[in-house]
């Protein structure tokens, strides 16, 4: 109970905030924090818990976004069905990427994931007849919960929060269950894990597939929330970096980490965009420079991420109190 108390507080604050906050800008910020937190946490399942670092997770996000958008525009289906289809397609794709992870290790796997998202980007940009090409797809706004045409940002907070909590629970399962222990062993030393009877390959593939499905769910909601799917954005390396950054800054392989990381990344980015945005501003991309610097500082001084760093501080203080 004590271990999940911070998470309970975090999600409770996020869930109750819309009752007090009416400002659209702030609610939008909260939705983005939860959205990128959920995506970061989904990434964390593969990159953190299973140790399969990917910089191509935008592939899954984009698949989810396109599935929702295409279901709405082409077949007049509910985006919820699109979300489901997106998750299924992403799971299948996750199996392929997972298979690659059994063939390629370390940097070669990372490169393969980047290439994979770029292939989807090119596919989505060129296949005009189906995806509308590089112009992107405006998602029609049809009011109602079933069609996810919701103007009230407060409701969006709750919808995205539900997904965030779901991904958090999956991570919690990975910390406490048999499969979680086995996956941690695979991450630490795959051969040693194999020698102890852990089905390493199957577990890695499964982790990547689950991670892919949840990332796609984020993509589907995002498409509905923003109302526009642009291939260059949803399949971008930028987006993959954002997911991984939230998890790395917050704490790889920790359940709350990606959400804390997202608070940091999202607020700083939103602030900088607002501050230096606008036409003719030469500093629009400054947040990317900041990402890089933050990553260097974290890796140098707190490789365990925020969660690990806070934990260390606490232990130090308790230790200091114990020895007078």
């Amino acid at each position, binding site marked *: 109970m004590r271990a999940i108390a911070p998470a309970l507080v975090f999600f409770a604050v996020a869930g109750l905030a819309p009752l007090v906050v009416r400002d659209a800008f702030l609610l939008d910020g909260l939705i983005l924090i939860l959205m990128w937190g959920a995506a970061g946490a989904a990434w964390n399942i593969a990159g953190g818990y299973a140790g399969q670092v990917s910089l191509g997770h935008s592939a899954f996000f984009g698949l989810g976004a396109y599935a929702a958008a295409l279901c709405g525009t082409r077949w007049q289906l509910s985006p919820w069905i699109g979300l489901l289809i997106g998750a299924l397609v992403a799971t299948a794709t996750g199996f392929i990427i997972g298979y690659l992870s059994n063939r390629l290790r370390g940097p070669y796997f990372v490169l393969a994931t980047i290439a994979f998202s770029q292939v989807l980007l090119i596919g989505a940009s060129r296949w005009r007849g189906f995806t509308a090409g590089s112009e992107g797809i405006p998602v029609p706004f049809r009011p109602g919960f079933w069609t996810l045409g919701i103007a009230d940002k407060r409701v969006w907070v709750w919808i995205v929060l539900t997904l965030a909590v779901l991904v958090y629970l999956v991570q919690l399962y990975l910390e406490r269950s*048999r499969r979680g222990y086995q996956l941690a062993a695979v991450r630490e030393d795959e051969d*040693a894990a194999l020698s102890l009877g852990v089905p390493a390959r199957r577990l890695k593939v499964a982790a990547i597939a689950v991670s892919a499905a949840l990332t796609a769910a984020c993509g589907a909601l995002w498409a509905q929330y923003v109302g526009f799917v642009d291939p260059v954005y949803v399949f971008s390396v930028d987006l993959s970096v954002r997911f991984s950054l939230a998890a790395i800054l917050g704490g790889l392989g920790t359940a709350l980490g990606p959400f804390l990381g997202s608070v940091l990344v999202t607020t700083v980015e939103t602030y900088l965009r607002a501050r230096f945005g606008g036409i003719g501003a030469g500093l629009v991309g400054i947040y990317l420079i900041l990402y890089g610097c933050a990553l260097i500082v974290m890796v140098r001084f707190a490789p365990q991420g925020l969660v690990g760093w806070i934990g260390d501080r606490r232990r130090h203080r308790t230790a200091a109190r114990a020895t007078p």
Partner: protein
Amino acid sequence: MSLLSVTGVTKRFGGITANKGISFEVQPGELVGIIGPNGAGKSTLFEIISGFYPPDEGEVRLDGARLTGLSPDVVCRRGVARTFQKLRPFPGMTALDNVMVGALTRTKDVRHAREQAREILARVGLGEKIEAHGRTLSTGQRKRLELARALATQPRVLLLDEVTAGVDQRTIPGLVQLVRDLHAGGLTLLVIEHNMRVITAMAPRIVALYLGEVIADGTPDVVTHDRRVVEAYLGQAYTQ
């Protein structure tokens, strides 16, 4: 019927033949030592038995069922566990978590696995170290941890690769005693060891390898006085 049988196992790496038609049988409850100078093919043999390398020829059977061709995790679940010559505890996990990974191969219940892991750690003399991380343990303690982890998978045959290598002289007797205790408890063990004094004190039967072939198989007394074994270890000058 023998518990573990190795039949005509041959393994080539390019032009080098690491194992050449190796055959021997291990009976239930036996402790068999495997000796041989560097490059004799001891470790390669372990990799083949545990499923990490496929042999080019020959096969390994456990209780009559073929192990060759199965992946290492399946071999372990069938009942053959191993330790590594180069120790590889999970460095970021506590000793308890390390052993739990082994225990969870046999039980689905995490709490049950935790209890088992605690017991096994106490049995190998790491009862005080359950919360220590893999990387903070001494070499001797890590050897014990590896042993505990492998034991947790409830093996029918345990393969130990160089139990006493790299630990200081004072630590050796304790480790030897631990292996002896396991044997006395009825466990079947196959032990690679390069320290002649250790293995003759530990194993009632020794298989000697040289250049990938079995050159002697018998009691320590017979094997250590075998002309070819002495030659292999010390060179021809000592055989007069």
